[in-house]
């Protein structure tokens, strides 16, 4: 479980997050939604410690994460897996080396054991016969899947995904979404997904948090989202004419 309490973040004098409090539950796919520039990526990066917050608290289970030093945070970071928007695979390394990297850094396994784990993770995300390919040789969807394989290599307790299906066609996007949900439930991970894709919300959103102008406007389930009275959320969810027609029908 991850809980943020009253966190605020400013860049110089510009507030980006204001007094945000949310509890992200274990074994569930927690979604942060909001339009571009709403502050959801800053929220995600603040939770993982890539941005220092100005006020508030970030709790990983019973550990106050934002009070830890860089070295103390390392122990928690080893339990974090993250899928970045562009997958962030290491360009000069093969698929196999990318997935093996966290194992080489933080485990004392033999090479054979590490290779077994790499192959297991790659097969879990349906990547076969691609161990020796470089990221430049992969499609967008494959890069995301390799990114997920790398993120789960060390059996993380917490999984973060920043816009996992951006730049993908709807079908591949749903495949990635479902993969994230399956992995979350299979390993009982606390997963936080950052998205503005309503397909993802309706497909995998166990819990949905709506951020608007750096403020948490709404939280609930994917079922509740369709019947909410929150105007800003309705404007976001039913932004397209097709969605409005469906709502009115």
């Amino acid at each position, binding site marked *: 479980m991850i809980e943020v309490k009253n966190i605020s973040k400013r860049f110089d004098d510009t507030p980006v997050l204001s007094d945000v409090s949310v509890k992200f539950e274990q074994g569930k796919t927690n979604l942060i939604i909001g339009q571009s520039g709403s502050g959801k990526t800053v929220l995600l*990066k603040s939770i*993982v*410690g*890539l941005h220092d917050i100005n006020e508030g608290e970030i709790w990983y289970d019973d550990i106050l994460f934002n009070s830890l030093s860089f070295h103390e*945070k*390392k*122990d928690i*970071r*080893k339990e*974090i897996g*993250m899928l*970045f*928007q*562009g997958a*962030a*695979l*290491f*360009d000069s390394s093969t698929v196999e080396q990318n997935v093996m*990297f*966290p194992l*080489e*850094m*933080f485990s004392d396994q033999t090479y054979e054991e590490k290779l077994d784990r790499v192959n297991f993770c790659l097969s879990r995300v349906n990547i076969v016969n691609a161990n020796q390919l470089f990221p430049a040789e992969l499609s967008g969807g494959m890069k995301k899947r390799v990114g997920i394989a790398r993120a789960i290599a060390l059996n993380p307790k917490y999984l*973060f995904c920043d816009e996992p299906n951006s730049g993908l066609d709807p079908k591949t996007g749903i495949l990635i979404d479902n993969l994230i949900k399956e992995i979350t439930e299979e390993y009982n991970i606390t997963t936080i997904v950052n998205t503005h894709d309503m397909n993802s919300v309706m497909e995998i959103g166990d819990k949905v948090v709506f951020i608007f102008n750096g403020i948490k406007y709404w939280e609930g389930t994917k079922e509740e989202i369709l019947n909410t009275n929150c105007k800003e959320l309705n404007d976001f969810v039913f932004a397209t004419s097709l969605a409005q027609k469906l709502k009115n029908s």
Partner: protein
Amino acid sequence: MKFLEQLGKYFILLTKVFAKPEKLKIYYRQTLREIENLGINSFGIVVIVSVFVGAVITIQTNYNIENPLLPRYLVGVTVRDSLLLEFSSTMIALILAGKIGSSISSEIGTMRVSEQIDALEIMGVNSASYLVLPKIIAAVFFFPILSLLSMFVGIFGGYLICIISDVVPTADYIYGIQYVFYPHYVSYALTKMVFYAFIIVTVSAFHGYYASGGALEVGKSSTKAVVYSSILVLLANLVLTKLILS
């Protein structure tokens, strides 16, 4: 103020770079890779530049001291001392600042803007140390070797032009390059090269590490890396020469 802010960020980066490495075995492997990238892959340019410059210095020196009162072996002496004292350290360092500095800056800058550095940080890896320390070790170890190579090849270039165009009798040239040799010149050049290696790698890595934006900014940081590391190499040359040779 901005200069002081940049200087502060540079030293903060250095403290991160010299923090205790996570896993020595990985750093050792990375260092070997960087020796190949930064050192061995620079052999070609060092050899080509040095052989031509050695030949040109020979021709120019001969042209300038064409005087019956001056012995011909002075051409050899001048070529040797020019290469040892300045060309094979400072000029080679400036060439390497262009080749290696831009490569380091753009590599790390691209990793920054494509979130690869964030990915390392999320995993709990000290990204600054993992990316920069092996480069520093490789360059500090290998730049002096490149300098030695440049000295030999440059002198050989002068010898070649003596054979090809007969600007100076080869016997005089060979006598000249052995005449009143101070081994101290070599250690002076190698000492300078160690400092230059450190400057080029850290300044270039600094500009890449703090790059932000996209391809345009990475390109700009790469240009800045070459310009600033070149200026600092020249400044270090002045200071070290004053300290060592005065």
